[in-house]
């Protein structure tokens, strides 16, 4: 198992290196630069600024400088946000995104799996239909519609929760967590239901039932493992995407997370910030994929033996 993890980490590192290299050069190919503005500035000033950020160096030298920085865990200064380093920007935003994302994943996984199981075990019952409706609503209605609707109801009309911001402790978390979890609840519950029903039709479940060990044991010891494997496979990459922040959630609920940096940095050609965020998101995604594979390998001996 250790060899399996080690090999996956090594492959993950290679993937990340390729991703970062590709991003670095593609970003430079895109027209414009961090200091191209509509307002003309004198060539001397432009040259001075570019020299300060080493943009006057040949591109391979810039790349070397960037790689050397990554190795020292220094991602350099932001070209857009003066006086802030990329490390500062990530350190200030990431905790908010992580907190909201973490709880959203927990809520989505628990509620989603519970709804899916209930639907599969009591097919065509009221619970099943309710879960189905939640699923359709959660998938079909976008976050930017549900978010303001919930704000209008629970914050403005009922005054139970803050509209947004981060200053009311865990009360501030409830609405963004719920809104972020909702589409995932929908997806996870559908996935769990389908996968449960498929697994219940497997021959080995018939064997288990024929053993007369009672339906509870059939469910817990035989059906759940197989049924939850696809859900776990989905949860890995989904968790990486959720905890790294959502620009929609952060905009709707005025949360100073890092989600908005994803978009802003690219639009502003803030090269160091783009690279920092790519590295962060890529790293988290790869880590969660490895974690998913490890969990699946623990549950499924056939994956373990592939190596």
């Amino acid at each position, binding site marked *: 198992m250790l060899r399996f993890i080690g090999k996956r980490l090594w492959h993950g590192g290679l993937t990340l290196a390729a991703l970062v290299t590709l991003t670095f050069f593609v970003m430079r190919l895109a027209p414009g630069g961090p200091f191209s503005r509509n307002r003309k500035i004198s060539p001397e000033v432009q040259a001075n600024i570019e020299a300060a950020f080493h943009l006057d160096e040949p591109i391979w030298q810039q790349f070397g400088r960037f790689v050397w920085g990554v190795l020292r865990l220094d991602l350099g200064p932001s070209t857009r946000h003066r006086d802030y380093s990329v490390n500062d920007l990530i350190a200030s935003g990431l905790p908010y995104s992580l907190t909201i994302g973490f709880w959203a994943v927990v809520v989505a996984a628990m509620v989603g799996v519970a709804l899916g199981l209930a639907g599969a075990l009591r097919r065509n019952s009221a619970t099943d239909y309710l879960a189905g409706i939640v699923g359709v609503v959660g998938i079909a209605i976008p976050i930017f519609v549900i978010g303001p609707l919930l704000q209008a109801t629970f914050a403005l009309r009922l005054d139970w929760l803050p509209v947004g911001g981060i200053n009311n402790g865990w009360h501030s978390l409830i609405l963004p967590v719920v809104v972020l979890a909702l589409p995932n609840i929908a997806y996870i519950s559908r996935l769990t239901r389908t996968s449960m029903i498929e697994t219940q039709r497997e*021959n*080995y479940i018939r*064997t288990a039932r*024929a053993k007369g*060990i009672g339906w509870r044991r059939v469910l817990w010891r035989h059906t759940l*493992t*197989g049924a939850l494997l696809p859900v776990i496979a989905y949860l890995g990459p989904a968790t990486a995407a959720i905890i790294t922040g959502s620009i929609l959630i952060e905009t709707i609920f005025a949360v100073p997370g890092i989600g908005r940096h994803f978009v802003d940095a690219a639009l502003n050609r803030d090269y160091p910030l783009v690279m920092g965020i790519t590295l962060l998101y890529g790293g988290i995604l790869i880590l969660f994929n490895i974690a998913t594979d490890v969990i699946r390998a623990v549950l499924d001996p056939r994956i373990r033996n592939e190596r």
Partner: protein
Amino acid sequence: MTDSLLSIRDLTVRFRLPQGETVAVDGVSLDLSPGEVLGIVGESGSGKSQILYAMMGLLAANGRASGQVSFQGQNLLALPPGDLDRVRGDALSMIFQDPMTSLNPYMRVGDQLAEGLIVHKGMAGTQARAEAVRMLDRVRIPDAAARARRFPHEFSGGMRQRVMIAMALLAKPRLLLADEPTTALDVTIQAQVLDLMAELGRETGTAIILVTHDLGVVARLCDRVVVLYGGRVMEEAPAEVLFDAPAHPYTRGLLAAMPRLETALTPRLGTIPGTPRSGGAVTGCPFVDRCEVRLPRCATDRPPLRDLTAFGPGRRAACHLTGVS
């Protein structure tokens, strides 16, 4: 029959389908004595497997069984799920057709075997696993103690079916149901697996119902044979006489379609013309469309299953032509 282990009376299995109801098993009655090996033969769709599934409470969700299946004084069809679970896997167990998919891929083989003993016999885990290893050894799994800690995908098809046999016989059942246990296996190991099953059955005094479409298997292992067609019993006879003197036209057709070593295949192997009719209620004999000796009344009158004392003891057939002669 006073020493009857199993007594099936008028078992009917229906399936609800979008296009209406279909009858898979149509009023089947059977008896089985302790330790007896009964073969049920018939072609695909004759309802032979569904008889076993009905007994085990494993019919598909749209299936319904009616009639009576008395096993050790209990009607299996009327038992609540909890009581049925006390019978199946203990006194009544089953081996399935496809060993490749019938074992849980996520669970160690030894644990899958031990599970039944823990639940039914109240054994402790270590004791149950030791029993499981002993049983694996008896079905000739080499190095059973180490193999018990392996997963099903590390076993070949033949070995998996031997594991299934070990699992089914572990609780020393009174009756073993085997649903085409060798169909999915290599021809070279079919006989080996069947002989093993029969041998262990004899040792534990377990009666066996063997469902198959392979008449060679029946000749090899069974004491008695029931021939099924369209969900109905066509003929029932001791195995040795069925092959020498089949009473029903369908049985004769089946035997003619069986390759034999002593006769050359010239001009070619016999076939039964036509295909079985599917679904729907039949008023007359279900075999009428394909029968070469049919009478006009066969299409309208259902021939009852009659004792054929003239042919010898324990013989029954459902044909207007037999018994009158």
